[in-house]
């Protein structure tokens, strides 16, 4: 069952779907692994290293795409490559199924079994395959490092002969996996950290990292069975902004990570809120890719407003591409291993499985995921 890993072609993507250690693991399972030449270049890994791990260099991308049973990559396939794929093959990647309707339909039409990794259920047993978690965690770290590189202050408190430097105040809005890592990293560097989230369970988690939770009484908020946040009503959001404004005004750095699964990210930090902040402050909008939590943020740009620099960083995990790739490929390895049939040496698709039920989007020419099915047909 040939497995093929093409190079990422989306611009700015530095991550790699499979590192040599994971190749070795798959080969150990009995898979035949092909990679596109130069796959690891962006993280300084040579083709040689892949070969030593048991991989083979595909002579040419197109034919490899067309002849492999399993395709692994980070980003969604370009639509023009879908037709190249072998019917019945399994395609594993992030897909952004909620928005990429045409792509998903095309995959279904091509008879591809498309697994959208963002749809993996957030349950304990699936955590080892959970790329959203692993990448979000690194993104949180990278966001703090980016903020530290941008702001004109140092994070920790210092009492020195040249006066006492006050520690940076950092405010985190939205504390999922990424937000938690933001807190951890900023606290390590010595910042004073406050954080807010709409899900009540988060308060304890924030405190478990030694930061302060900002309490806002928004009425009923809650979370889904998967642990995702529910969308707020417009009134709730208004109320939230009011409180956020005060905390942003006091903060030197604001990092936003708020997301609602399957929807546009909520707009939390409005322009007037930015105008109330101290000049010289920094905002990092980690949700910029899915619509942005900050009104004035732009993807991959640093916007300056009222002396406040607003970083709209896409692909934060790509900034620590080496570790991000390692984690991503470990997740893929675990996924394949979990559903690997040792006898027949194939990846077995069982749509009644708790995990596959959620993340297999298309199979046998149909869109098989209920949520997506309903969304598209609505």
């Amino acid at each position, binding site marked *: 069952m040939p497995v093929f890993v093409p190079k990422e072609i989306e611009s700015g993507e530095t991550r790699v779907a499979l590192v040599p250690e994971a190749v070795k693991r798959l080969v150990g399972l009995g898979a035949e692994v092909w990679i596109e030449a130069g796959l690891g270049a962006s993280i300084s890994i040579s083709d040689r290293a892949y070969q030593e791990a048991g991989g083979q260099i595909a002579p040419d991308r197109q034919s490899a795409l067309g002849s492999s049973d399993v395709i692994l990559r980070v980003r969604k396939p370009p639509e023009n490559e879908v037709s190249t794929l072998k019917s019945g093959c399994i395609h594993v990647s992030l897909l952004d199924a909620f928005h990429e309707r045409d792509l998903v339909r095309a995959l279904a039409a091509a008879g591809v079994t498309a697994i959208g990794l963002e749809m993996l259920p957030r349950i*304990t047993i699936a*955590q*080892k395959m959970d790329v959203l*978690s692993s990448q979000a965690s690194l993104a949180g770290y990278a966001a703090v490092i980016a903020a530290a590189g941008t702001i004109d202050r140092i994070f920790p408190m210092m009492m020195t002969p040249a006066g006492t430097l006050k520690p940076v105040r950092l405010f985190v809005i939205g504390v999922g996996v990424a937000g938690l890592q933001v807190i951890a990293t900023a*606290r390590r560097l010595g910042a004073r950290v406050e954080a807010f989230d709409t899900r009540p369970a988060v308060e*304890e*988690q924030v*405190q*478990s990292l*030694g930061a302060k939770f900002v309490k806002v009484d928004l009425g009923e908020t809650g979370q889904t069975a998967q642990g995702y946040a529910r969308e707020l009503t417009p009134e709730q959001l208004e109320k939230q902004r009011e409180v956020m404004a005060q905390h942003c005004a006091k903060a030197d750095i604001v990092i936003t990570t708020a997301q609602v699964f399957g929807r546009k990210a909520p707009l939390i930090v409005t322009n007037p809120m930015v105008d109330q902040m101290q000049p010289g402050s920094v905002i990092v909008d980690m949700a910029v890719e899915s619509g942005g939590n900050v009104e004035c943020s732009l993807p991959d740009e640093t916007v300056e407003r009222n002396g406040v620099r607003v970083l709209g960083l896409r692909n934060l995990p790509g900034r620590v591409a080496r570790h991000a790739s390692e984690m991503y490929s470990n997740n893929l390895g675990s996924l394949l291993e979990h559903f690997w049939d040792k006898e027949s040496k194939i990846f077995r698709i069982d749509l009644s499985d708790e995990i596959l039920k959620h993340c297999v989007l298309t199979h046998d020419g149909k869109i098989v995921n209920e949520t997506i099915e309903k969304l598209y047909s609505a």
Partner: protein
Amino acid sequence: MPALIDWSYIAAAILFILGLKLLGKQATARKGNLISAVGMLIAIVATLLVSGLHYQWIIVGLVIGSAIGAVAAQRVQMTAMPEMVALFNGAGGLASLLVGWVEYHNHPNQLLSAAIPTFLAILIGGVTLTGSVLAYAKLAEKVQSRPVLFPYQKMINAGLFLLVLLFGVIFCAHPAGSYPILLLLILLAFALGVLTVIPIGGADMPVVIALLNSYSGLAAAAAGFIIQNTVLIVAGCLVGASGIILTQIMCKAMNRSITNVLFAGFGASTSSAGVAVTGEAKAITPESAYFVLEAAAQVVLVPGYGMAVAQAQHVLRELADLLEANGAEVRYAIHPVAGRMPGHMNVLLAEADVPYEQLVEMDAINPTMATMDVAIVIGANDVVNPAAREDPGSPIYGMPIINVDEAGTVFVLKRSMASGFAGIENPLFFKANTRMLFGDAKASLQALVTEFKSS
């Protein structure tokens, strides 16, 4: 002369007290033993000054006894020490019995105030003798060391004990004409010693010896009452009391209660069945947990989300340091999904400055788990849930976990029996080798630390 003897006895008693005190501390133990030996010498020499003693037989006895004792003490293997102590202890018990016997033999017309101690010296001395000898035999594997059980055992023992009491009362009431009863009592005491020790397993023998040691002290004190000798009473009673405390301490170190040791044999059939108990979770106090930890050589610490919630990382580190200072090897086993974000435990342990070298991955620790004396689970739950291994119906079935249940003893530090993130019951809490240390993890760890510090 008598005054000198009395003052010597006082001096001897003081030396015993000091010696015992020093024996309880590592640094001074040897000195303590020496001091108590000097006390003994003084007591012996003073006794020899008692007027009217015939020395010839005394000297014969001393020489023979010294020779046997010295040779035995020199020859014995280091590993066979407890057996040896048991034998010596038996000898002491026998000596007390004989003293009681001789006194009765020489003055059968005793007062009640002499008859009662005579009875006690013979009873306790006799039990000590046969009990100690049997303990020796079990330890040295001269007889099978497994608990020996037979039908109606409990009733037979109780009956025997009542019989002893009955004859005791008769004896004390009319000591003068009761020589046969005395001899009978000696035999009964021997039987009682055998019967009480026979149902106890070899592993519990050290505790039994400590208890018998306490008995032999009491027998000596009883002998002291017969001959109205202060130093005998003081020294015997000191040994009796400190022996009981020591027995308790040793029980706790084995995570057993004393009744558990003494009557475990009777329940042996139940616990040998080996079926996983799903009954009640057993709680433990920090003090008892301390005694177990104090004796552990390999300890693994398994933190989870509860450690983070309690912000217990600093105290945990402190406990680990104390365990290491106490000679144990300590590792932190980190489950990849412990906590609520990737690397949650790493962040917190790094904050507490735990060296990276002490962090061990799940896959590395699991194969060695069976060699761990103690696993301490600090606010972890799902990541140590054996249902993942054992129960195919569990939602986490198949997830690798840290197999703490394979360790000798497991302490679980959490606040209640509540479930963790995955919301499922944890059979670990009900396993026979698991003890729950309820309470906030930080407070519980602090309590353990305090126990260590105050030792």
